[in-house]
């Protein structure tokens, strides 16, 4: 298992986990979301071939209400 921090919470992902796996684990939709791993943006087209390693921080964001 790969222990990662997913949107601020500890998660156990399978050994061969990718960014795609992480997004699925959160139950996030495909559209309108973006991912950063350790502060670096991973483009949608690279989710499936970008491994998530032990201890990494994965942030999955989407648009919400906001603005002055």
């Amino acid at each position, binding site marked *: 298992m790969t222990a990662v921090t997913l*949107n*601020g919470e500890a998660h156990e992902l399978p050994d061969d986990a990718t960014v795609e796996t992480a997004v699925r684990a*959160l*139950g*996030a*939709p495909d559209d*309108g*979301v*973006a*991912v*950063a791993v350790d*502060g*670096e*943006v991973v*483009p*949608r087209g690279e989710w499936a071939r970008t491994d998530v390693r032990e201890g990494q921080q994965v*942030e*999955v*964001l*989407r*648009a*919400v*209400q*906001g*603005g*002055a």
Partner: protein
Amino acid sequence: MLEIAGRRFGSRLILGTGGFRSLEVMAEAARESGAELATVAMRRVDPNARGSIVEVLQDAGLDILPNTAGCFTARDAVTTARLAREALGTDWVKLEVIGDDRTLLPDPAELLEATETLLADGFTVLPYTSDDPVLARRLEDAGCAAVMPLGSPIGSGMGINNPYNLRLIVEAARVPVVLDAGIGTASDAVLAMELGCDGILLASAISRAADPPAMARAMRKAVEAGVEARRAGRIPRRHYARASSPEEGLAELERSEQEAHVPDTPLAAARRSR
């Protein structure tokens, strides 16, 4: 008509979407405001969240302008802008880099740094800035598509605290000036446009009003009124009155003092001594 970086908007009002109690109220207010552009923030995915703000705004005919609200460093703001570009497919960003969590005032040094990084990365940058004319010029010189000075702190509703500075920014700017933050009610929006701003961005004044759609309508009218008044050219301020009716042909309606048997009054005495 507001034109930013070659894109034309029929409305000079940009709607911030923070603070609405529901997406339904937000959509109704958006329609009433006439806005064609609305800001959104980027936050962690909540699988239990109901509805998509992007769909609701697009259904109401608005384009999306992501912001970097909540970022305190250039690095965080740059990453957030890149995430927004990835999630929303736009390279426009309303850049906010906050320097103080009580006033939410911008951090000028971090703001300039983030601006330069994002411009080099191909973004169209609309920076939320203080009302400092020199900082506004630095942002414009860096290549920002507009400058967005505050009227007063975000959500404060204090209106325009320093109209003089705002006027200086407007006079010098060669890019659109969009007043961002501080508007409390319609008269503040009128003043912004009278001072020569090209547009305003507001959220709380509408979203936290008792009746958001009604306030949105008031703001739309206020922006139109302010623009018209500025074009029409206001009269100069004077210290004393200037009669608007002609003095020529004024009737003499009192008899001269010798003949008058009416008691003297202070007003009559004052008129005699003039």
